[in-house]
């Protein structure tokens, strides 16, 4: 590419400098019709260059489209996009989460990507390209992390007002940590979650449970909150702390506006001590790490 550009620019500069009209220059330049030899040269060379580019293009395209869903070694994740958050479900492991996608390092992660509302696009720039999340059909995709870390994920297809804020995280950890996390998630499902914060749990059960599940109990309209205390962010992009969480619960539409399925604002519905208890309860939702 750069080579082509350099060649063109050399000819370009040479021509502009050499063939400027000079003061006092008279006469008419030779009216050349063209040159078959030159035409053939600058048709053939690009064709050869393109063939050179085309071969790896085709092979990589097919490699990236490989379907690992039936590979027994791959971790399967169902990705469902919503305005403006991401749902992750591990069908084989019986675990569901949202916003933070946990994966083991060095394994193929087979993804089935779909959407609940409008078209979104799943993109983790450092790990893989994009794949659109289309309502009504499932796209196969895969990615793999070769070293542990937290990777940024984004929505790449315009999906409404808060498209810019629809970030998520991919947390790649070694196999042992991942297994431990899965075990913790599963344990959370079977436990009736004994907690020191009785009021918070009660507020949660009355106001939140219909939409937000903990473990496998509760609604699926909003993100699953099982491991909420360990999340990287509030709402996908804010710092993970109690103040931001309180701001979110008080009026979500102020932070991420424009969703068709809206979370109601609880700022006026909860008493201050109920709010504090709820925030405290949610921040304490951590599976063993």
């Amino acid at each position, binding site marked *: 590419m750069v080579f082509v550009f350099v060649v063109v620019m050399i000819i*370009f500069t040479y021509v502009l400098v050499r*063939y400027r009209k000079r003061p006092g220059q008279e006469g008419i330049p030779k009216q050349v019709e063209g040159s078959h030899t030159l035409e053939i040269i600058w048709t053939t060379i690009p064709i050869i260059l*393109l063939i050179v580019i*085309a071969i790896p293009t085709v092979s990589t395209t097919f490699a990236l489209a490989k379907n690992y869903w039936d590979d027994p070694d791959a971790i399967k994740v169902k990705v469902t996009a919503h305005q403006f958050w991401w749902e992750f479900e591990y069908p084989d492991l019986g675990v569901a989460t949202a916003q933070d996608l946990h994966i083991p390092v060095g394994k193929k992660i087979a993804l089935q990507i779909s959407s609940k509302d409008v078209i979104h696009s799943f993109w983790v720039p450092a790990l893989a390209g994009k794949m*659109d999340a289309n309502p009504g059909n499932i796209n196969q995709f895969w990615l793999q992390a070769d070293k542990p870390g937290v990777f940024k994920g984004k929505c790449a297809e315009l999906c409404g007002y808060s498209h*810019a804020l629809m970030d998520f995280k991919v947390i790649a950890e070694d196999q042992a940590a991942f297994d431990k996390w899965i075990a913790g998630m599963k344990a959370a499902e079977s436990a009736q979650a004994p907690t020191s914060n009785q009021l918070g749990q009660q507020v949660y059960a009355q106001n939140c449970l219909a939409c937000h599940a903990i473990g496998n109990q509760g609604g699926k309209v909003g993100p699953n909150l099982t491991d909420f205390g360990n999340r990287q962010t509030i709402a996908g992009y804010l710092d993970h702390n109690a103040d931001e969480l309180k701001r979110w619960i008080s009026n979500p539409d102020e932070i991420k506006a424009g969703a068709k399925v809206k979370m109601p604002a609880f700022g006026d519905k909860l008493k201050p001590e109920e709010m504090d208890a709820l925030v405290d309860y949610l921040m304490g939702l951590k599976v063993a790490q």
Partner: protein
Amino acid sequence: MGHSHAPKKKGLLMDYLTTVDHKKIGILYFVAGGIFFLLGGLEALLLRIQLIVPNNTFLNGATFNEIMTMHGTTMIFLAAMPLLFGLMNAVLPLQIGARDVAFPFLNSLGFWMFFFGGVLVNCSWFLGGSPDAGWTAYPPLSVSFSGFSLDFYALGLQIAGIGTLIGGINFLATIVNMRAPGMTFMRMPLFTWTSFVTSALILFAFPAVTVGLVLLSFDRLFSANFFNVANGGNEIIWQHLFWIFGHPEVYILILPAFGVISDVISTFSKKRLFGYSSMVFATVLIGFLGFMVWAHHMFTVGMGPVANALFGISTMLIAIPTGIKIFNWLFTMWGGQIRFTTANLWAVGFIPTFVIGGMTGVMLAAPAADYQYHDTYFVVAHFHYVIVGGMVFGIFSGLYYWWPKMFGRMLNETLGKWNFWFFFIGFHLTFFPQHFLGLMGMQRRIFTFFPNQGLDFGNLISTIGAFGMTIGTIIFLINIAVTNSKPKNAPADPWDGRTLEWAVPSPPPEYNFKQTPQVRGYDALWVEKMAGNKGMIPAEPLGHIHMPSGSILPFIMSVGLFIASFGLMYEKVPVAIIGALITLFCMLLRSLIDDPGYHIDPTEEKGVEA
């Protein structure tokens, strides 16, 4: 000669409302397209101000999406297309030695359809907010997830699209039928050739978007389910229909610019265009391949590797004819005497800019790589390099080149150079950093970005560049004002031109050529100059010239559809019916009234040379 009386003199407004003269319609296209261009530019500036720093709150997500959608829609449909039609109208009949286009009435109708379609889309600003689903308007976002505003998009573009289709058909018929004696296809100037291919692309591409917009309108207005997955529809169909139109649209825009550049470079190098026949061949090939590549906009939709690979390879093929063009331009200048007039500066500046845009195009054509580039600022940079760096540079070049022919006045060259340098440097400052923003992970169409991602500096530079382009554009407006205050004294052939339009006075009389010229070769005027002739050799004796009458009907027909659209949007059926009846009644009138036109006796007119 029963009708050899000239029509009554009309006031300026009535004259332009009823005109069927291609030169005046060209001016109408420039005025309307120019206003929409300024509007789209203003929108772009607001977007860049919002993105100047991270977490900016100048615009919120809703307003940003509206402005972003309207910027794209306005620039493509309401600025780029009409400005090209303006150039084609102003120049093309002259270049082929014709007295007008094939269907002058249709020409006027095409303009007014476009105009009222554009006005309709922009009415949304005052009626509850403008479309906000991107200029591509993908369902379901554009159907059940967007408000009322998308109706303006669907109906406004439908009407404007009819106008464009009419215009395209008209130019096809004009080029096929109206060429002067001796003007064979292989003697046509490159601008005429590229306009010809562009018109053919319009003919085949616009029906796709027409169908798409009909489906979208039905989904929106009548709750149909074409794109509704829940009821058995499929939202991906829209993407195919849109891009089957949308990709050829890119070539519809860029090909006439290629034509302008070819003519300008040839004139100002004082040389025949190098490799004329391969340039024509490359143009036709680009037009043909342009229809084979639409799905490269959809690599991440999930079409599978076979479709992705095929569309990737077919896209790369377009680099070959484009490369042929670039080298032919370079070798046209080779050995010439290059004059750096403003028109030629734009043409010369076009070359490196377009080469960059073309190279990023090849990079995007590889599906595997596109998985990263897609829907990022890399794409934004790429298509602004080809559309602004390609088409807008071409239009500016054409404007400076043909301004004397259109208005009888020469644009100021000093201001023109300031215009060029501000716009050129501003352009590269704006869009070059966007390549890197995209590679660093900045998605397109985001209303804000977060700090500490390495995106701050690039966005700042980009916004500064946008102001540079703004200043350049303002200088152009000043140039127009200054030029307008000068006497109308442009010579017929100010640039030592090579093609037929320079054989008639500036501006040309309404019948263009007193006697239809006899064309004796490529670069028809140049051939005569070399043969030592003062002008073209006439192909017919001097005689009365038949002219078409003006008509207000196209204007009223367009108003009818405009009214009908409001009836549909607000679910007032009687209004919709009245609007449709107005249009139909005008069509009936047009069919029933026998209009023989009138005749001009050119010998009676004084001071006219041809």
